[in-house]
């Protein structure tokens, strides 16, 4: 049974930006469905249409049995939404935050009280119910944020970049919570992420989205198997920067017609060579390049990752697309851009 079905969903923003450009997919009951793509790919716009915060320009979707255009109020009763920004009131206690949401979902006082206890237990915040949220750590706030979307036992939870901005250790923790919640409450989860590892570890099925379109969909294994063999990644040594592209071309030409090479793919800094067997390919590659006096700076062999899947279908890496902010000032700028 499908919990989410979309029908050629399109969102065009003023100025003609096609943020979501006709997407179709289905999410089955009980699964964790991951929407993977770089920033600006249309992930958040999709989530906001599905949870009725914004209206599609055309097309529609059925969420938890109701049409998002015709019955948004019915949809809202059956979904939980956890945005990228932690939407909890820091000046209230955890219990107050959760209780308010219980009332919004028309639960009676007794039920709310019972569920608050249950949920705090479930997200491992027991004992912190009556502490003011500003005393919580970042990971605790995110867990409370997730808990607030659970109090009414929704059919679907929408998680928009659930671990963005969290440190790696907390991230792994949150993954565990999400998995446990999905299992314990039987809730279907729709999550967006630009972390390949997150999609890989958490999602039962993944749709890769780029520039408003779904490029490919499947289980993480299916997607990775669509790239057979291994990936040998090369970076090269050049005397001057300006002949780097030329060097890449020469290297690609030297390798691409060899029988053990399936495909090559150049990015700004590296060359990915897809081969049947990575370990045995490395000596041949080294010999070939040495004969053309191309000097190799580094070489590595790996199994294909979702990044390679993204690279195969778009010719770009998510990492390069994402332009992850590295400084606080960049993060601020990003935040400001987002608000506009």
């Amino acid at each position: 049974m499908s919990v989410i079905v979309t029908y050629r969903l399109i969102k065009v923003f003023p100025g003609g930006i096609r943020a979501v450009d006709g997407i179709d997919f289905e999410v089955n009951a009980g699964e964790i469905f991951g929407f993977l793509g770089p920033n600006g790919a249309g992930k958040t716009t999709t989530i906001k249409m599905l949870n009725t915060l914004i209206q599609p320009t055309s097309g529609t979707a059925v969420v938890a049995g109701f049409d998002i255009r015709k019955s948004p109020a019915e949809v809202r009763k059956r979904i939980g939404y956890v945005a990228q920004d932690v939407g909890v009131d820091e000046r209230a206690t955890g219990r107050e935050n959760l209780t308010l949401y219980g009332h919004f979902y028309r639960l009676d006082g007794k039920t709310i009280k019972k569920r608050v206890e249950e949920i705090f237990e479930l997200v491992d915040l027991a004992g912190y119910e009556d502490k003011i949220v500003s005393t919580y750590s970042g990971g605790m706030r995110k867990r409370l944020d997730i808990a607030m979307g659970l109090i009414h036992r929704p059919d679907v939870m929408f998680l928009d970049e659930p671990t963005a901005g969290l440190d790696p250790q907390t991230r792994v923790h949150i993954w565990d919570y999400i998995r446990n919640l999905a299992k314990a409450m039987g809730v279907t989860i729709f999550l967006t992420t630009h972390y390949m590892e997150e999609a890989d570890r958490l999602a039962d099925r993944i749709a890769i989205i780029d520039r408003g379109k779904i490029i490919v969909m499947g289980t993480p294994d299916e997607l990775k198997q669509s790239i057979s063999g291994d990936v040998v990644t090369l970076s090269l040594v050049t005397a001057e920067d300006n002949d780097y592209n030329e060097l890449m071309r020469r290297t690609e030409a030297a390798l691409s017609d060899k029988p053990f090479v399936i495909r090559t793919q150049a990015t700004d800094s590296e060359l990915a060579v897809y081969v049947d067997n990575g370990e045995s390919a490395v000596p041949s590659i080294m010999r070939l390049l040495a004969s053309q006096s191309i000097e190799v700076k580094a070489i590595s062999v790996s199994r294909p990752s979702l990044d390679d899947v993204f690279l195969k279908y778009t010719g770009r890496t998510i990492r390069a697309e994402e332009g992850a902010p590295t400084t606080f000032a960049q993060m601020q700028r990003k935040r400001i851009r987002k608000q506009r």
Partner: protein
Amino acid sequence: MNLLTDTWFQIGRHLRTQLRIPVFIFVSLVQPVIWLVLFTQVFKSLSTMPGLGTSSYLQFFAPGVVVMTVMFGSAWAGFGMLHDIDMGILSKMLATPVTRASIIMSRIIASMVMLIIQALIIFIIAVIMGVDLATGVPGVLFAMLLICLLGLGFAALSNGLALLFKRVEPLMAVITLATLPVMFLSSVMMPADLLPGWLDTVRHFNPVDYAVVGVRDLVLSGYIWSDLWRSVVVLFGWAAAGIAFGALMFRAKAE
């Protein structure tokens, strides 16, 4: 029914938030006392002036302090909404079945509750300092009605502007720019008879003036219905216009 319960629970949230900031309570109680003491000292010599309607500037100015406190308090009300927008609290709420109107209504009503308590305290302090209330307790209640209408208009307007701008800087600039002239372009500080002609004309377009004229009548003179009816009607219009603007901005800008 849902509208009422949603509003009720959110009012609870807003009031709890304010009461948890002890500095806020301290400032909002101490500030009017400073107004009352400081201004009556600065303008002490005005007590002998004709046209004041009383022989004490304190008596004249106390209604002005009440109106000013309400105006300043409610004009800044939009910052609560801005906080919710900034923190992502608003968009998270909008994905729940909460009635839309309750979000802005609860904010405006919570501001009113705080301001009524503040206004009452100012009245009590004024009486302790020697102000005579011409119409007694019923007059104070009437004054509360006028004050509430004034504050509703400002609070709704401020919330509307918060939704329109969605940023601290423009909201702060507009509020700072608007509140001081609005106060001076009225008979808050000076009796109308002593104002220059143009200012006496301008004040008739200022809701603050209608509030201060009404409250001052009730404190100094008694029920002067010709003034009071006008104040009630104009302030009703002001409150309605403010709420309409706030509601419009909410529908258009809250996503």
